[in-house]
């Protein structure tokens, strides 16, 4: 069965109320803007979103936020969207703030079948409150549980028809690690090519991680987000 879907809603059919969804991107850079747009048009609620940011005000995940479809955000830098603070103030969203390295490493662990790990990052700070502390070889560490999700929506540069992925410059960011940590992985790409067209050495995400592929219809350009 082909992984390629031409209808965005067909690709997103697996997303249910209450799901935990990883969303790639560093702000709008490397964010799956077409799939996020698809979520804004889908009747779904109570989502937990794991993403570095919740988009920008009225852009990317910011639209989903304003539709009140997000119950909880797990990320490292919500400051980039002022609407998150307003929602939080009104008690309309739950937030879990993690250091950016912990966010990334927790997903890496989740994708590798590791239940959690100890890190020095955050020791002795407010973000370590109520976290288990342990001394290893005289150094203090805190325990961080792994992160996994029902679905990951990610952005890559090219996919071959098998689902092998290559990325573009700093649009890579969280996408490859999210591809490993969710039950179902949906990717949007600039171009779909034949398997022989990607060299095995350049593939960052091997096809076994990828379930569905769509072509990007919304892309980030110098003029902002435009319809492709």
């Amino acid at each position: 069965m082909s992984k390629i879907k031409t209808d965005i809603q067909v690709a997103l059919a697996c997303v249910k109320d209450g799901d935990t969804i990883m969303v790639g991107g560093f702000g709008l850079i490397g964010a799956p803007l077409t799939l996020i747009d698809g979520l804004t048009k889908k009747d779904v609620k109570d989502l937990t979103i794991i993403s570095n940011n919740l988009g920008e005000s009225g852009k990317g995940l910011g639209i989903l936020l304003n539709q009140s479809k997000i119950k909880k955000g797990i990320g490292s830098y919500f400051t980039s969207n002022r609407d998150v603070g307003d929602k939080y103030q009104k008690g309309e969203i739950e937030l879990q703030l993690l250091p950016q390295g912990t966010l990334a490493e927790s997903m890496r662990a989740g994708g590798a079948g590791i239940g959690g790990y100890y890190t020095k990052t955050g020791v002795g700070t407010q973000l370590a409150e109520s976290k288990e502390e342990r001394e290893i070889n005289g150094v203090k560490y805190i325990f961080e549980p792994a992160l996994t999700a029902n679905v990951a929506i990610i952005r890559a540069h090219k996919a071959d028809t098998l689902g092998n992925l290559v990325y573009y410059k700093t649009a890579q960011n969280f996408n490859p690690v999210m591809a490993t940590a969710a039950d179902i992985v949906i990717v949007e790409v600039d171009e779909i090519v034949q398997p022989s067209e990607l060299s095995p050495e350049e593939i960052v995400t091997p096809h076994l991680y990828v379930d569905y592929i769509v072509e990007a219809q919304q892309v980030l350009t110098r003029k902002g987000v435009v319809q492709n």
Partner: protein
Amino acid sequence: MNVLDKKAIQHMIAARTAKELTGPCTVNLGIGIPTLVAEYIHDDKVFLHTENGLLGVTDVEEEDIDPNLVNAGKLPVGEAIGASYFNSANSFAMIRGGHIDVAILGVLQVDQTGVIANWAVPGKNIMGVGGAMDLLVGAKKVILAMTHTNKDGSSKILKECTYPITSTRSVDMIITELAVFKVVDQSLRLIELMPGVTIEEVRAKTEADFIAD
């Protein structure tokens, strides 16, 4: 202080900070004044790392700006010869694993033991931490590039931080428009006055205790 003065001060701090960097070394630049440090690095063996996934950051001409090539402050950057891209988990493994030689950071407050606060302000919603805590625990050396005082003239170099701390680790050096301090055995040592600055002025604008040789 007018706008031009503010910019000139930021550049003065950045230029002085750049003198601390001699290659070969890998350096991570934070947001604000630290980002300006790049303009004053003329050593091609100083490699700039940005935590969103690039080792080999360089500047970019207006016509070459690529919206998908940015630094951690989401500002457009260029790709140096010998650059590499990697995912966020690998990027932070470089930081947390002790592979970055120097981190240059801005702060809200630093105390007299070199402990900093740069991610949260009490009474406001705590909305972002980014990579600050990772850089503090992981970078071999941490240098602060910061203005000496707040807009209201109050000292940012305090006896004790009143904002939530970023890490229990002390930074190694503090560079402001007035002076350069080294942190030695958890105390501040004044090692240099900026041109035209007197020690009396530094004392008047510094709440923290420091040692002047």
